[in-house]
């Protein structure tokens, strides 16, 4: 099967690619087409936030080959950090988001320092164990977090840029804010994954021992990827706390952590930068549409997932890549239009 190394990155050295522009055009105009296609603004907000989460997650999962099954913990830490900052320090958008990033990066640093020495199944299990510890703590320390009732009444502070301030109370206004954040994260991640750092991570994924023999301090790179990934997930969590205006323990549960794995895999995160994007969009839309039609939608999603793993584990992005390749048999390996860069 194909991997990330196989899918060519024709415009790897550039900051903005055609795919990014197309993506920005689609997502940027969402408030105008969401309603007519039968969707709604809040769904758009949630999809954008989870795309940020998934893209950060895929740095670890797809690029570094570190399969974290407890990543919900960092998303949750970011959400709680944002909320606690608003309640206990000062009501401030930038402060809250900064707190979310710092808190989740710190959590990632502590956990990563322990788990990044391991690989494979041991790594996965330790991430699950830590995920469970965070989840358990968020329920137990209910004086701080509100327990299963949740941390409520988290405000949506206005986006204050000094000269001009935007009120984010309406879902539409808030959508444009998270969309801007999304594009920043996309551009940043594109640069990171195409940088020497990103290539070393891929080398580590392919063969850790060889990377070590070549002279790289493997553990440090894994830890850096881990912390970066948790920081981005925590940032998404902070945005989610604003969207929902609350923070709840559930996002840290094993079920939710496994969902991000499933979404990323189905979308094709193992083979493509845009895999997580496709996976998140597919999951939320399918869930909303199917969920309205049947109460057993999880059965169908699970079946689809099982079938996909069996026949096309490269996911949606991989399927698109292979289909495109088949349509252009004579082209060389510098694809201009490959949709999944």
């Amino acid at each position, binding site marked *: 099967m194909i991997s990330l190394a196989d899918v060519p990155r024709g415009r790897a050295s550039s900051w903005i690619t055609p795919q990014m522009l197309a993506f920005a055009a689609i997502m940027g105009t969402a*408030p*105008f087409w969401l*309603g007519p296609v*039968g*969707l*709604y*603004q*809040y*769904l758009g907000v*949630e999809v954008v936030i989870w795309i940020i989460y998934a893209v950060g997650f895929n740095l670890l999962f797809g690029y570094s080959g570190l399969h974290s099954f407890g990543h919900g913990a960092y998303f949750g830490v970011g959400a709680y950090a944002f909320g606690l900052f608003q309640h206990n320090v000062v009501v401030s958008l930038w402060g809250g988001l900064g707190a979310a990033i710092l808190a989740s990066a710190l959590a990632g640093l502590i956990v990563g320092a322990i788990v990044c020495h391991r690989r494979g199944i041991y790594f996965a299990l330790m991430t699950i164990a830590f995920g469970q510890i965070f989840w*358990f703590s968020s*329920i*137990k320390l*209910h004086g701080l977090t*509100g*327990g*299963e*009732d*949740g941390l*409520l*009444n988290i405000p949506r502070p206005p986006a204050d840029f000094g000269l001009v301030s*935007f*009120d984010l*109370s*309406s*879902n*539409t*206004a808030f959508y*444009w804010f998270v969309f801007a954040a999304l594009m920043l994260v996309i551009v940043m991640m594109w640069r990171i994954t195409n940088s020497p750092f990103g290539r070393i991570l891929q080398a580590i994924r392919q063969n850790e021992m060889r990377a070590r023999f070549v002279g790289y301090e493997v553990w440090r790179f894994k830890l850096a990827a881990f912390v970066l990934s948790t920081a981005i997930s925590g940032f998404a969590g902070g945005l*989610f706390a604003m*969207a*929902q*205006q*609350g923070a*709840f*323990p*559930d*996002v840290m549960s094993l079920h*939710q952590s496994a969902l991000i794995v499933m979404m990323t895999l189905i979308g094709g995160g193992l083979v493509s930068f845009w895999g997580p994007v496709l996976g998140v969009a597919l999951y939320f839309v399918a869930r*909303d549409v199917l*969920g*309205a039609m049947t*109460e057993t939608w*999880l059965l169908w999603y699970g079946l689809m997932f099982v079938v996909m793993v069996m026949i096309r584990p490269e996911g949606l992005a991989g399927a698109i890549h292979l289909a495109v390749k088949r349509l252009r048999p004579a082209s060389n390996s510098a694809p201009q239009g490959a949709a999944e860069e």
Partner: protein
Amino acid sequence: MTKSTISRRGLLKSTGAAAGLATVFGPWQHNRVYAAATDKPIKIGITSDASGQYANSGASDRRGMAMAIAEFNERGGVLGRNVETIHLDTETTPATGSRVAERLISREECAFLIGAVSSGVANAISQVAQKYGTVYLNTNSSSPTESGKNCHRVKFVWDGNGANFAKAAVKNTIDAVGKKWLLLTNDYVWGHNTAAATRKLVEAFGGEIIDEILVPQGTRDFSSALLSIQQAKPQVVAAAVGGDDQKALRQQVAQLGMGDSPAWINNQQDWPDVYGLPLDNLFGVFGTTWYYQLDLPGVAEFVQRYQAMYPETRMKVPGNVFYNGYMATRELLSAVERAGTTNNIAVIKQLEGLRMSAADRMQHHDAWIDPNTHQVQQSIYLATANTGSSDSDDMFKILSSSDPESVKDEGAAAACNLESYADTPTYEM
């Protein structure tokens, strides 16, 4: 049926496009859009769980709502308009609750939202509902915080909570059994609030809490706790254990035959959770808000209507969850009729302070909605397992009924801060 009516969605589209900047820069509109046609159906969003831990209770809740709505539609609807429902599964997950509420309000244009079992989900939904002003009925979440710290102007709570049940049980049990109590508490907010209420009451009536055993949420094995209880030898054990943990506890206490000694005080037992289980799983004294064998006028007919509407369902007789769903929906629709409009503030004002007679409620005492906490103050029943009956459905033996005033949750009013009417967006669907 005219098509020229301005719908909520229609106005959002036009303000979105034409006044796009206004929605970016300006504050969210307080006074939103107005349905004109009176032949448009009234849409109610049903936010109950169809999967996850509370799937079974959620289904029963829904059936209660559906029966009430069917009764109104048979009589010609509400204000001459048919009542329609949309149900979306909240999956016992708060994030899903938020999304479901947003969808039901903004896309499906529901006038009201009904349904809750899990307090986390109820909180997520009620925050969204309060943001838009949509009236939300919390039918079955029995957490004391629902009408305390987490109360809202748009939310109404129809179930008794842990503090009510504790108040009903404690004094009687101290008098009947003894003063040495032990608390078995599930280590999460609901468990702690219920245990704290029990503790305060026990100490107020001269009892003594000799120990408190905390069990984490997710505990499936209670053997250590049960051994510790045996070693401590209390006279009464007050268990504040809920959800799936309670189901495991029930099995294990039944196997040990520890249901009789020491005396157990359990909190509310939801009918869908216990129906069909062997009787020794129902140990100790527990609470409920209603029972199908109450010797009151109207109860038998109510049960028959249930059986006629749901002949295929596993539960042959309805219980408290169905009852709460039915009552909440019925009172909401009656309030809309009395108000003469679906304007949310008018409906809220109809519900606040509403008095419902005992006969109407099929309970022993009159009930009313506390205007300061929005919780229904109703009769609280204590029951135990009905070992004498040959009817396998007749599982409860009602021991006593308490009038609402005597079991009132004293802490709630102080903790609850309802948003003002001015701060609550208004609409009319």
